[in-house]
């Protein structure tokens, strides 16, 4: 795929927009892609890495991905310029059942670099805003600089039909920071969204998910109304290479999207 746009979200975090070079490939993507699915992005000579498709199913002219420059592949991706070609395999995995969210209030909770998969669901819903009730987004990062999609955060903050709660970890605030200071689970409990007729979608580092699930339980959310996506290390994406399983569940085939009820049935120490 060709890189047609790229910009930095936070230190070391980059978003790229990719366009298909082959019409048949694009057609296949349009037919199969649903929000929640992931792909393997690669640079020949360096290898492949797994990230979600950060763009929503309502916008299929391109693929957007957001990644942190960390290892060999992500460094090569970060070095790739507009016009360069990179590889994409996918889309793989299951999806968020967005039709089932129609008529419900939505609560999105995300931390740090995990906003991309949440953002894909957020836009899938905001692009057909009339089908959903109240939309609340709780997003936090370690520091103000680490918040990703800053331009979209501004857009959501300005929208009257979106309630955005932003927070940074204590010590991560800048002098002009006007939003919350505190960890995501704490801030979530303070915001206290009602569990009535509400679907929660949470994405974040494993430690954030663990404590956020506890907070959601306190707020009265039923585990079957809470969705998350498990981003395990993967190589094949086809249920063969053997590393992404949590207990008997193959994240690449049966996931990456699970309800909290499904996650609760997985062995916690293997997450």
């Amino acid at each position: 795929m060709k890189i047609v746009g790229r910009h930095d979200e936070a230190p070391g975090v980059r978003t790229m927009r990719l366009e298909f070079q082959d019409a048949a490939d694009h057609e296949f993507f349009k037919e199969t892609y649903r929000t929640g699915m992931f792909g393997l992005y690669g640079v020949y000579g360096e290898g492949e890495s797994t990230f979600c498709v950060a763009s929503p199913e309502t916008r299929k002219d391109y693929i957007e991905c957001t990644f942190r420059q960390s290892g060999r592949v992500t460094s090569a991706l970060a070095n790739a310029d507009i016009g360069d070609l990179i590889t994409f395999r996918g889309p793989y995995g299951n999806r968020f059942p967005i039709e089932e969210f129609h008529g419900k209030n939505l609560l999105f909770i995300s931390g740090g670099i995990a906003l991309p998969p949440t953002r894909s669901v957020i836009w899938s819903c905001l692009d057909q805003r009339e089908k959903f009730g109240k939309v609340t987004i709780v997003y936090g990062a370690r520091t103000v600089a680490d918040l990703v999609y800053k331009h979209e955060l501004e857009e959501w903050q300005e929208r009257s039909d979106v309630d955005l709660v932003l927070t940074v970890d204590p010590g991560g605030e800048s002098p002009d920071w006007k939003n919350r200071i505190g960890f995501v689970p704490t801030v979530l409990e303070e915001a206290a969204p009602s569990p009535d007729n509400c679907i929660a979608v949470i994405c974040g580092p494993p430690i954030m998910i663990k404590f956020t699930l506890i907070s959601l339980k306190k707020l009265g959310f039923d585990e079957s109304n809470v969705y998350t996506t498990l981003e395990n290390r993967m190589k094949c994406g086809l249920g063969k290479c053997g590393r992404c399983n949590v207990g008997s569940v193959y994240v690449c085939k049966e996931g990456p999207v699970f309800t909290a009820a499904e996650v609760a049935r997985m062995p916690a120490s293997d997450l």
Partner: protein
Amino acid sequence: MTKILFSDKLDNCVERWKSAGLTVIGPVQRANISTYAAVEHAAELDLGLILTDRSIKDLFFPQSEPMLRYTIKKESIDTDECLPPSGPRIIFGARPCDSSGMAIDDPLFGWDYKDEYWFQRRNESVIVTIACTKADDFCMCTSLKMAPDSSKGSDVLLRPLAGGKGWVVEEVTDRGREAFKTITDILQESSDTAAPLAVVEKKFDLDSCVTWLQNPENFESRFWKEISMRCIGCASCTFLCPTCHCFDIQDEGDTYTGIRRKNWDSCSFALFTMHTSGHNPRSTQSARWRQRIMHKFNYFPGKFSVNSCSGCGRCSRQCPVDMGITETLQEISKLSQ
């Protein structure tokens, strides 16, 4: 009367198969390691081994194989898919645990996406298995509900005659029958009977082990730490295992040309599951050993209705610190009583 292949005629068979276009492969000694390799003459075959050091898996799922070659040009990238070198072959002298191991992995490689590398080789291979008349302390096929003469995964099963002068021929599949048509006139009718099979002692009760493994409470048992304390994470067990199938995909090359390869990987390695963030779902050696046992006897059978172990015992036989599936399941057997 049964059909017999006499040992002194084996070289004629090798010649016949070769002239029919088949590559003849069998157990051989190479650089102090016994393995399966192509041979020109029957004399090269080492059919007296209890089991080769390396498993038959190497022939179907090599340690490293190219998946595609790429050439980066100014405006485009050319790629060539690399399928395995094709050609029919006959594997003579596999052991039942190795042959059944390949049948065990068929549903995994055929699940959802059909792995063409695996199935091309499977479809082009005739497996002639020789039943075991000898076993060692590590053999455990009977504990896995198999036997020294299991025909699972075999196209032809040979039962050794007493005195080692030949084999009783049992054709198992059409592919096996087809390959043996070319040597019909070499086979002889005889009333000779097969030698007694190896006695392989039952080492644990599989059903009670599986029940113990399926109990979620036992996932957190102290047992996992104790049993895996010695594991050094070398991955020998997974690499020598006929059914372990985990792999990695890596690129190898320079800026403009190179190869994307599929290489064996192992659940014994910490890097296997390590996230970019540094978080590792299976961060300890005990979690990794638990994964290996759970995968073989709980997760895999849950998906494919077959245990991912054929009882060859290589994991115990060649473990540098004397661990293995046998010891682990023996201990679980005790715990579950």
